[in-house]
């Protein structure tokens, strides 16, 4: 999200954004040390309060130990899933393996692309803005052409559906 400048939009969709210290260490500390500009963007977002950094409470750390996640997941992803379980909030997971683990734990999740669709549903962006942001995201994220085409199609389908809903009310 940081890479595609979608943090403010995600904040509006989700009513607040938080990352765990594990994600912070990976995306910000590690990224800044390696000189990545995107890391600086996320660092600024944490400084302005747009993104809250949360440490796992002792109970959540216990949940992390008990969860016995597969080793295919990174520590940041594991922390995100258990923190979302503890806070009963939505986890943003862009990886199939991470989403499969979230299902096992019973955590509701979405991916960056669906957050963008959600912004369209919530009326935070119009169809043109949705498509522009989606194309930018696709470029940043190495999105499969078939997924991009499907998301563009779904965006239009949803946009028309919402227009029909408004017309009938």
């Amino acid at each position, binding site marked *: 999200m940081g890479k595609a400048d979608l943090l403010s939009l995600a904040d509006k969709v989700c009513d607040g954004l938080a990352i765990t210290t594990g994600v912070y260490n990976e995306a910000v500390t590690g990224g800044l040390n390696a000189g990545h500009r995107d890391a600086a963007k996320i660092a600024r977002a944490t400084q302005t309060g747009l993104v809250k950094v949360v440490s796992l409470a002792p109970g959540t750390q216990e949940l992390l130990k008990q969860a016995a996640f597969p080793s295919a997941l990174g520590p940041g*992803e594991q922390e995100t899933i258990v923190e979302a379980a503890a806070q009963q909030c939505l986890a943003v997971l862009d990886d199939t393996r991470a989403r499969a683990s979230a299902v096992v734990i019973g955590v509701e999740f*979405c991916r960056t692309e669906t957050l963008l669709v959600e912004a369209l549903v*919530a009326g935070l962006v119009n169809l043109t803005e949705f498509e522009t942001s989606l194309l930018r995201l696709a470029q940043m994220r190495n999105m499969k052409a078939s997924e991009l085409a499907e998301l563009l199609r779904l965006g239009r389908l*949803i946009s028309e559906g919402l227009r029909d809903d408004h017309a009938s009310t």
Partner: protein
Amino acid sequence: MTMQALNLGRLNIETETLETLNLLAQWQSTSRAQIIQRLLRDGARQAKIEHAAGLYGRGELTLERAALMAGVSIYDMMAHVRVHGILPPGDLGELQSDVASMLARRGHDELAQQVLRAEQITDER
């Protein structure tokens, strides 16, 4: 960076490679040992990144875990998979289900049904 001596015993190297090493040492005004040392370091690092990225492409690791395994930042791993066209696994059905779940969560059940119907059509194809 700590250094350790590596005794390779009688390591056979192709004549052409040996000539290239000598040439590189000459061009860069350095010793052959230093050239070998640098090539080994860079090559080993690159091989680690390629191996981890391959596992990511096959869905055996997440991007974050692949970056950790390769000893690079997640941004470096993102750049590597993008440049090499390594695409993450996942299918359209899963994407449509995720969109439908979001719509249902937001109370748009009818739209969610429409998206799921599209999923069935995709599956049938």
